[in-house]
């Protein structure tokens, strides 16, 4: 039997038994759509979270004061460090040739005001290079000025939201914002980055690190970022940094060095596992569809016994009859899983329109696997009914008196 004839024959069967076809199709559609949709949601959530936290380049080392003894897990974000991490420490690192640039970070809350408007806000003390490391872009004006980090210039760069809250539609550049007992001239406004988790610069004020040290009356740095020239040099540089700091801190290795990858990989792992688990659970619905296919096909075989007998009387071999039933399942699976993909992709696309920051969507291999599993399941579960049909003795099948 030719492939085209096989397809046409099965198409007629499927149209002829509309209810049965639709029922099986729905089971397959739900299965494939569930797998694709749920992994799409999970993957979207994962990418969203990663995107929110991966504000640093791959080659950036994060140095934080204090030693975390146990390996694995999150390093301490708070916790008393025995010795401050200072600007001098940072400056010492710049003599490593593998380090492109460094940037310090001090953060705290301060009450900001402009004219009568008052706002408790996040203030970050850092340097010019931070803008490059953190990939911050400016909407207006310029970044913090380059030069000696110990120079406490009275300038600031405002996050977009903060600017709006303090200035409304009025221009902010050149105006003076008060923070505590100090005043800062606005020299730049950051471009918005949308909703953010972690450090949200939309609502932050950036000032020179030395100014922040004075504002918060604190010498020690919260973080030092060091951008390494290439990923290859990450490990040697890391060791070099450790030994430099150790030397400067009286032989005490009292800092923790992490890469963003290390920070994110645990997040990544958890979210990926969660996504796969959810997708896998959805995959079970495909197995359920398979069982349904088997049962419905078994019923179909007994309903079509006379027809099978007739086909055999007309010379159809057992192999042909088996192929008829298997190809019907195959056709169902292909059409069902394509519709399932279509539906889930449209839902994901609609989701992306609604929440444009979340990159909803499953990886290609999940789509391929969902369709593949649907097809394999359908064939696997149709095999028993197909074999039963093929094994029917022609005479017994024919004496089932049926048909017009």
């Amino acid at each position, binding site marked *: 039997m030719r492939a085209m004839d096989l397809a046409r024959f099965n198409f007629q069967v499927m149209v002829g038994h509309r209810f049965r076809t639709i029922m099986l199709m729905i089971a397959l559609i739900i299965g494939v759509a569930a797998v694709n949709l749920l992994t799409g949601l999970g993957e979207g959530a994962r990418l969203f979270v990663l995107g929110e936290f991966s504000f640093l380049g791959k080659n950036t080392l994060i140095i934080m004061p204090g030693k975390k003894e146990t390996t694995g897990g999150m390093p301490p974000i708070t916790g008393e460090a025995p010795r401050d991490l200072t600007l001098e420490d940072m400056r010492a690192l710049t003599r490593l040739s593998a380090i492109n640039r460094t940037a310090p970070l001090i953060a705290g809350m301060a009450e900001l005001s402009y004219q009568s408007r008052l706002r408790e806000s996040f203030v970050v003390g850092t340097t010019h290079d931070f803008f490059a490391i953190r990939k911050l872009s400016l909407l207006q004006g310029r970044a913090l000025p380059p030069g000696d980090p110990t120079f406490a210039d009275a300038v600031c760069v405002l996050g977009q939201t903060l600017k709006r809250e303090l200035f409304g539609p009025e221009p902010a550049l050149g105006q003076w914002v008060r923070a505590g007992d100090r005043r800062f001239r606005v020299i730049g406004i950051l471009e918005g980055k949308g909703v953010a988790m972690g450090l949200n610069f939309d609502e932050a004020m950036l000032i020179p690190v030395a100014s922040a040290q004075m504002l918060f009356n604190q010498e020690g740095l919260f973080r030092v970022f060091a951008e390494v020239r290439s990923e290859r040099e990450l490990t040697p540089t890391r060791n070099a940094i450790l030994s430099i700091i150790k030397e400067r801190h009286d032989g005490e290795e009292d800092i923790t060095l992490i890469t963003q990858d290390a920070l994110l990989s645990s997040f990544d792992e958890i979210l990926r596992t969660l996504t796969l688990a959810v997708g896998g659970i959805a995959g079970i619905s495909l197995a359920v569809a398979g069982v349904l296919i088997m049962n419905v096909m078994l019923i179909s075989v007994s309903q079509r016994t006379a027809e099978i007998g007739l086909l055999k*009387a007309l010379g*159809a*071999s057992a*192999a042909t009859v088996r192929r008829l039933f298997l190809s019907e399942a195959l056709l169902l699976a292909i059409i069902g899983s394509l519709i399932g993909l279509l539906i889930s992709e449209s839902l994901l696309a609609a989701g992306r329109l609604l929440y444009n920051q979340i990159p909803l969507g499953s990886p290609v291999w999940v789509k391929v696997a969902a369709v593949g599993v649907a097809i394999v399941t359908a064939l696997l579960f149709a095999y028993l009914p197909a074999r039963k049909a093929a094994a029917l003795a022609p005479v017994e099948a024919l004496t089932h*008196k049926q048909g*017009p």
Partner: protein
Amino acid sequence: MSVANRSSSSPSQLKSAEPVVALHEINRHFQLGEQTVKALDAVSLELLAGDYVSVMGPSGSGKSTLLNILGLLDRPDAGAYLLNGAPTQDLSEEKRARLRQQNIGFVFQSYHLIPRMSARENIELPLILAGTAPKERARMVSEMLERLGLTARASHLPNQLSGGQRQRVAIGRAIIMKPKLLLADEPTGNLDTQSGADVVTLLEELNTQGITLVVVTHDVELGKRARRQLRMVDGRIQSDLRQSDVSD
């Protein structure tokens, strides 16, 4: 597909033809509880190419069982069945399917048409199963429809056809592969007199063109038309009558 077995003999040559079918001591028994039903009991029979045979006898005498054995739809419990001189009883089911496809056509009392397929598609089915090319198929089926006088009904579904038309479609399907042997089990059983007569005319026409025709019937008038008349009782052939001439 194969049309290699197509008979090209003309009717006049058929008198001296060798047997298309030879049954030797065929048994077909059914076990019904304690009781053994001997549906066929040591039946021996030879059919010559171009034969026109009717099989009659009381209900339960084994007529349909005989036809099923002849059509390779059923296997005998004992005995030998030679088709075109070659033994068939030990062949695999796949080989038997192939023999059926190329040598045997069936016509059933209840037509056995596939309800979702049009007249044309029902007739086309054996060609599709045999993998014949679509173009050749179309030509052959159109010819067949023409010959059956069903061209206007080609796209009708079986339930849109009269009984006589349905049976003609079934006959078209049975002979589209140009079999040597045409087996009909009560072909007129469900038809009124006029349609029945039309169907018989068609079958006899096919026989005249060389096909070996076996008709199982309860209709004495129909049975008497055959050149050779078998009468079965209790799984045995009780009488085997040959007429040198058919009286119309």
